[in-house]
């Protein structure tokens, strides 16, 4: 039977088999130790696949068009980064590239690498490390921030230019929602438990 130490007060609890929807709290300080979610891995995997598809759409279609008078500027996610780089903003371009493209992609691929075998009750090599990396990369995925920046730009530029939202923009916003949903159905404790490890 698994035991969990409270993050807050280090009290070790013995966790009995849990019902499908349950919240486990520390008996001493009341901190939430874990939540059980039905079908967590299945759902996560489904949303993850949807996310990967949306991500590829977001990367391959035009993102945003700006038209001011006769001038028309169209940009895609990758070409936007390229433009920033060409304009000398190397640091910013790298930051956008990392936080909005590479890290989310790495996260999704990593999670897929861990979860897909688990679905069929297998364990990929180094799945534990990959899952830990996934967890530690979490703060660096900033697609929401990017989205927010775009929304601000839309509002500010809306007066000066006509903004033509591209397919990628829609895909990107959907991706954010899908990833948020995925995070909410993902139960790391369950993954850790499935990965075993502590019984080896």
């Amino acid at each position, binding site marked *: 039977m698994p035991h969990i130490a409270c993050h807050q007060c280090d009290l070790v609890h013995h966790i009995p088999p849990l019902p499908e929807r349950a919240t486990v709290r520390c008996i001493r300080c009341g901190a939430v130790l874990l939540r059980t979610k039905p079908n967590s891995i299945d759902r996560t995997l489904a949303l993850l696949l*949807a996310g990967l598809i949306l991500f590829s759409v977001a990367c391959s279609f035009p993102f945003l068009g700006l038209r001011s008078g*006769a001038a*028309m500027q169209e940009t895609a996610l990758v070409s936007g980064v390229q433009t920033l780089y060409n304009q000398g903003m190397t640091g910013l371009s790298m930051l956008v590239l990392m936080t909005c493209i590479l890290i989310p992609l790495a996260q999704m691929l990593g999670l897929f690498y861990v979860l897909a075998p688990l679905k069929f009750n297998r364990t990929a090599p180094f799945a534990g490390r990959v899952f830990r990396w996934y967890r530690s990369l979490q703060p660096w995925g900033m697609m929401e921030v990017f989205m927010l920046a775009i929304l601000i730009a839309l509002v500010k530029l809306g007066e000066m230019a006509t903004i033509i939202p591209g397919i990628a923009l829609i895909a990107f916003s959907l991706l954010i929602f899908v990833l948020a949903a995925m995070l909410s159905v993902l139960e790391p404790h369950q993954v850790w438990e499935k990965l075993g490890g502590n019984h080896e």
Partner: protein
Amino acid sequence: MTDEQALNKQAPQAEIHSRRGFSIVWVVPLVALLIAGWLGYKAWSEQGPTITISFASGEGLQKDKTKVKYKEVDIGKVVDIKLSDDLSRVLVTVEMDQTAEFYLTEDTLFWVVSAQISAGKVSGLGTLFTGVYIGMEPGRSGTSRTEFTALEITPVLTKDLPGRHFTLRAEDLGSIDVGYPVYYRKIEVGQVVSYELDPVSDRLNIQIFVKAPFHEKVRKGTRFYNVSGIDFGIDASGLKISAESLVSILLGGIAFETPANIHSNEQIAENASFELYQNRESISQHDYNIKEYYLLYFKDSVRGLSVGAPVEFNGIKVGQVLDVTLTFDWAAMDMIIPVLIELEPERIVEVNTTRAEDVSLIDYFVERGLRAQLKSANLLTGQLFVDFKVFPDAPSGKVVRNGSYPVVPTMPMPLEELLASVDRILAKFEKLPVEEIGGDLKRLLTTMEENLQQTEVLFGSINQNVLPGIVQTMQQFQTSISTLEKSYRADSSVGLKMHKALDELGKAARSIRVLSEYLQRHPEALLRGKDNRE
């Protein structure tokens, strides 16, 4: 492990359900996949043809940025720019929209649109901000193509506009350029589309476009003229300044108007040709600007034919004599006189023109017997002119076009013919046997004399033998006469009639005398009749 056991005792084991099977959540990636698949398919199916356009210069063209536009609508994008193998051209690869595929034919035009200030208009200002773009004029016919050569200049697009194109022939371009305006009553009604040098005539063909409804103002007799700048003129009424518009003062343009004459109101077809006059004055001053030159070879005297003498056809002037020289032809060992004339074809108004363009009027008429002939314009001064006349009996001739000027066949002048026939009559007169006739007359006279002598002898014998009988008879006759006299008195009807008859005879004798006197003075009246002036 006692702790664990203790814990196990404290907490009972819960029931664990593990649910397998299809979860509704898998619909989400499925939907995402469907949408992405549909988007991908759409993008793939909408991909149009990729074409290559060859430019003389790649100025302003940018990869992935420069658009191809038709009527300011994007229909393609530059995806690659590179130099041709021999470095002479810039090859631009363009991805076109699928909708444009149908219009990519042989006569599709491409050109670079950039900001331009020309013909009083500023165009393509937008390209200052967006960069240049490639303009396209869709092809209407021909086979489809994927490789094109761009135009060097922005064409004036008039294919779709209602109106008509016309060709103006000019000696020089003046200050006209593509896009320059065409005016009618000082309204801008069209523009210059293009111009080219006609290699045959060494003149310029200027294509213009007149938009509807003004194209109907262009009639058969319409005159186009250059309105560049300001016209100054000083005459008795003072200084005259005229200008078409401010734009034409600064730049130039073409105006047209239709002077009234017989055929000027006929409608005219697309692409008809007109002469472009230097200015408005020249329309009315020199009506005929087109000249055709021909040579006429005369063998007889051209005395009285001067430079400037008219060339007439059926009594209407169609041209004039330019040059007369005496030439000795060593091949024919004969003197000939080539006469250079100019014809002004514009003087001849052609109606119902259905003939083939390449048959000229003069060829047609010469074939039917047209000849050039010298004719006397004035018998007193002896001035000659060249008359074009169709001789239906003349053998079919031809305009010979192997020399510097085409040669029109000639006919000897009619006065010469007359003189020739007079000569013939005189020659016949000369052949008359006058001396023989004289001899005959002499013989006749001697015979008559002999006869008279015989008559004298006869009369002598009559005197002697017949007279006494006659005297007797006369006496009887006198008696009869006196009887007659009684009946034929002057107051009798017979006497009156006799008197009248004698009067008439007297009158006749007088008029014969008058006639003979008149004839003495005017013997030529026998030929010409009496001159009424006297």
